[in-house]
């Protein structure tokens, strides 16, 4: 058995040492010779003596370049090269096949196997280094482009996440980004019709609040109020479509389907009422204001998408459930959650006994059938 020649370590410059070359050759003298030259050039060079071990090693820890002898027992250079080039994880690792000068058949087979370059035996130091330098430059250029592309993609997704985080829960923002794929923009397609649960929330006592002389305090209170609302909305995967004055429009089952949208809307509403109570009590003590939130929820078909002009556009929902929810919130007193019969049917089993009060029927403009209304927070 041949001994393995152990190349000496030269004074390799650290800047190159991160480029890792794997030499696969069953002749230890040839492998040692190639590794020696590469190390002299300041590269990391490792040697392996058979194709099977090399394949396992490459898959576990892909090198930056492979120098591969074609004639090896077992898995030969052609088979190993072909296997690597068919695997997405290793296809881009440059492979240099080492062939004999007069072996044209090997060159043809090497091209078919996907080899990136060839090196002829006997190996000339200058030729080896020239080929390695060229492939290294290409490899590094590709890596740089990949990292730039990756950085740009991360930046784009973070910008989208930042924009969407204002409208949807972090979970929904992640889902939107995940479904974007590469290069696309969110919701660029046509507006869609879908069943949605629309919720309007209003602040009772808002007019008196705005009359406070301390503008900073007004803004601070509104921020506190909206924080309670948005936290509860996001907690239940609601999407905020509009914020105007003290009013908030939230959609459920939109833009992504939710199996239990009405239930989530109901729970969000109860959370809003509960969590606003201590805020309201604090405002009462500090400013003497009587405040509370009223909520209207309705369910039905609506259109959602980017609606507006090229100069000003909103991602919004329009349709009957939105109009009805707007009408219900007008009717809701502080602490009341009014729902239409379609929502009530979906949440009936969740509403505690004694917490529901029918509020009669409400007629809407342009609608022949009146809508039955229920206050589902009566016991709260």
């Amino acid at each position, binding site marked *: 058995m041949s001994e*393995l*020649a152990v190349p000496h370590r030269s004074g390799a410059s650290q800047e190159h040492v991160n480029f890792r070359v794997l030499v696969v050759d069953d002749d*230890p*003298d*040839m492998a040692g010779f190639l590794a020696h030259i590469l190390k*002299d050039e300041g590269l990391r060079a490792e040697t392996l003596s058979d194709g099977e071990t090399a394949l396992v090693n490459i898959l576990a820890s892909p090198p930056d370049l492979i120098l591969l002898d074609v*004639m090896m027992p077992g898995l030969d250079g052609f088979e190993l090269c072909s296997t690597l080039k068919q695997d997405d994880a290793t296809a881009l690792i440059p492979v240099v096949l080492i062939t004999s000068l007069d072996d044209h058949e090997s060159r043809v087979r090497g091209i078919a196997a996907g080899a990136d370059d060839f090196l002829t*035996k*006997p190996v000339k130091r200058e030729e080896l280094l020239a080929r390695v330098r060229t492939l290294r430059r290409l490899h590094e250029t590709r890596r740089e482009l990949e990292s730039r592309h990756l950085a740009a993609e991360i930046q784009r997704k973070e910008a989208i996440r930042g924009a969407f985080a204002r409208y949807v829960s972090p979970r929904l923002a992640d889902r939107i980004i995940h479904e974007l794929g590469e290069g696309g923009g969110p919701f660029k397609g046509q507006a869609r019709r879908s069943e949605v649960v629309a919720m309007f929330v209003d602040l009772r006592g808002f007019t008196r609040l705005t009359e406070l002389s301390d503008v900073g305090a007004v803004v601070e209170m509104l921020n506190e109020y909206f924080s309670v609302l948005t936290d509860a909305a996001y907690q239940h995967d609601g999407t905020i479509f509009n914020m105007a004055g003290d009013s908030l429009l939230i959609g459920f089952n939109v833009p992504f389907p939710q199996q239990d949208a009405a239930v989530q809307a109901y729970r969000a509403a109860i959370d809003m009422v509960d969590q606003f109570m201590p805020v309201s009590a604090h405002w009462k003590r500090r400013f003497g204001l009587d405040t509370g939130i009223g909520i209207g929820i309705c369910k039905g078909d609506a259109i959602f998408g980017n609606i507006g002009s090229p100069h000003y556009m909103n991602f919004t929902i329009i349709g009957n459930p939105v109009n009805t929810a707007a009408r219900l919130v007008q009717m809701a007193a502080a602490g009341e959650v009014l729902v239409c019969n379609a929502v009530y049917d979906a949440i009936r089993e969740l509403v505690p006994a004694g917490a529901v009060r029918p509020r009669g029927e409400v007629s809407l403009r342009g609608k022949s059938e009146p809508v039955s209304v229920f206050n589902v927070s009566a016991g709260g």
Partner: protein
Amino acid sequence: MPENRYTVTVAKDLEDLIPVFIRNRQKEVESLRAALNAADFEQLRLLGHRMKGVGSSYGFMHVSAIGKQIEEGARSADRSTIEGCIADYATYLRKITIVYE
């Protein structure tokens, strides 16, 4: 030292590798003899092919030249040519002088 077929000039930076290289060549002579005794011409062809590739890479042109003859001899099962090559190879390795530059 006069230049002849037994004097080989090798790059200075390869000096550390040469003792192992020479020992492997001496083992190679034994492998060649064993293959010839067994009339294993495929093994002889592979050994010749390997000598052809590795010899000149290190600067040992004569190793490559002998390897080429053995590879060709093995293809035609030319026993006497191979025998002569192995004897020549053994002599070469005994008489060789290496100069590092």
